[in-house]
């Protein structure tokens, strides 16, 4: 399988969430925000200084620091 961490994905790439790991409280929040397994996420852009990163999912835009994005395992969609 080619699972990757979400913070490694380049902008303009679409991915599918596989799993959310990480600390309990941030993991729960990330799931609540809709990054549940199977959800399609488009990586939009990095902030001008390189972090945080902006994503689009479920029709809205969300930003995560790389530290949080790192806890989301994804699969790149071809």
């Amino acid at each position, binding site marked *: 399988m080619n699972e990757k961490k979400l913070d490694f994905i380049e902008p303009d790439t679409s991915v599918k969430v596989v799993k959310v790991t990480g600390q309990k409280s941030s993991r729960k929040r990330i799931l*609540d925000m809709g990054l549940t397994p199977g959800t399609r996420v488009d990586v939009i852009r990095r902030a001008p*200084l390189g972090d945080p990163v902006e994503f689009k999912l*479920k029709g809205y*835009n969300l*930003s995560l620091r790389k530290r949080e994005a790192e806890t989301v395992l994804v699969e790149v969609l071809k």
Partner: protein
Amino acid sequence: MTEKITVALAGNPNVGKTSIFNAITGSKQHVGNWPGVTVERKIGKRVHNDVMMEIVDLPGTYSLTAYSLDEIIARDFIIEEKPDVVVQVIDATNLERNLYLTTQLMELGVRLIIALNMTDLALAKGDNIDETKMQEFLEVPVVSTIGSKGNGIEGLLDAVTNELHRTRVTGNVFTYDDEIEDKAEKLRVILDSDPYFAHYPSRWFGLKLLEGDENIIKKGKESDSFPKIQIILNETDADILEAKVADQRYKTIQTMLRQVCNINTSHLSGSDMVDRVVTNKALGIPIFLSLMWAAFEVTFTFATPFMNMIDIFFGWLAETATTAILVPWLASLVGEGMIAGVGSVIIFLPNILLLFFMLSLMEDSGYMARAAFIMDKLMSKIGLHGRSFIPLVMGFGCNVPAIMATRTIEDTRDRLITILITPFMSCGARLPVYVLLAGAFFGRDAGVVIFILYALGILVAVVSAKLMRSTILKGEDAPFIMELPSYKVPTLKGSFIHMWERGKIYLKKAGTIILIGVVGVWLLASIPAPGSSGTFASQEIYGTTESMIGMIGQILEPLVAPLGFDWKIAVALLFGVVAKEIVVGSMGVLYGVGENEESLSNILSAGSMTPLAALGLMVFTLLYAPCFACIGVIKRETGSWKWTLFQLAYGTSLAWGFAFVIYQAGTRMGLMA
């Protein structure tokens, strides 16, 4: 007899709750704080169909598993206070994530009504939402609204009053797979048999336990039946279950959405296009800085004429009062104490009103989140959130509105640290002190010296933030999970209401502290020192060695002597707590040159003070206790005297330490002799 009910407005952030609240209540609203915390609480009243409604605008929340203070407040209000009706405001352009909260509100079994807001934007986007089908699916009333225009409000209120008289049987629209349902059922049986849980809907509580909601587990642990609960929870891997619960909620939502609406996902939204420019790698920062500059200019330059007018007006008022009142001490109390005191409260109003108007435009348009997105990397280096940047920058204009602006920072600790370090941002009122002293002692290098002072302030703020983060306010950085809401056209009405509220709060809450402070200093300067033959509040003793403040200055002299200051400086610094710029004027009076700045700088540079002491004095002015207005808002925004006093003590110790090192080390090394 009119019925009295409580209606809570709940929903995700930025969906239009406050707009709907304003549309319902008009001007009949009251803004305060939630008990014990400094999160805004807005309550308004409205009578509709003979029902007296008390409307509560709750802070935004994404889920009933609460993370931030805002969310805990919203959740606790719904769960503990049990409002008669909960209106969830939903952003029609962002249904899927908005409905996630709906699933939880329905599980909670509250009397729910959905305000389908932003329907104008959904229509423009080409989405087609069938309200009737949505209502059938969810089994709760759905009313479309346009919050910013006030459309649909009557219908919404009708729905509220209709709902009151209906006995409701909410089926479980949201069901989970057999494993979860089975466990939820087992938990329900246990919870129903324990009176400890009687206050909570048992299905909801059970599901929250399964989800691993920390707050709920903590509540559960206090009951006697927890061992039995624990057994069921231990049967499965909590992590897997938690993902499953969230996943299945979203699945049900998707099923529903397929039936009730047709969402146009094809075209790039206007918001996305704006963001291509506004958060662009090359343009993002310049645009942000330009907007910051514009906001700063509008706030502080625009405010100047108004502030001058207020200053002149109160000066005139004080003088008129002083001449009209024949008893000298009373004239001085009214003129120099009370009127000057009220003046020093009002003088900040233009800054506060303008800044909050600008901030409200930025917040309501959706730009504030972009600003945080752009500046977060920088702020995270000192353990803060991107949202801390704007208040800190505004601090260069005036610390008072800057500290009030920290409310946009969600995390309590981040907010507290930002409040504590904002006074180190050198505000406009400190500049006259630098200009005078640097001009008198450093001549052509004055500009460099002033620049160094600003830089030192920033450095102290940065180091203090890091220090506090690793000592007294230790802990993991709050996770950064922030929505970038789509851009909206802000309404003038909304921004005016917001601006006016902030001004009112400032006057009511900080005003008293400032007034007490100013009158207190007047008293100290007017009461003759023990043993003095002067009369109370006479011109002759005001602020001199003959007065209490002069005596305190002399008592303090040994403390400030190592900094190269004499008692006059100590007194001037005491006056400076009224307002920083007063330091200059007081020095003039104390050195016997009146308000004439030129003679003051001559007298100082002629030998009353060494350049090192002058440098120390500027640094001292930068760092020591902020002015009363600032102290007032620190108290108001931290809600704690302990933190307010901490800021004063910390700043003043730093000021003393820096001035000490500058004077002592400088003198030893023979610098600037």
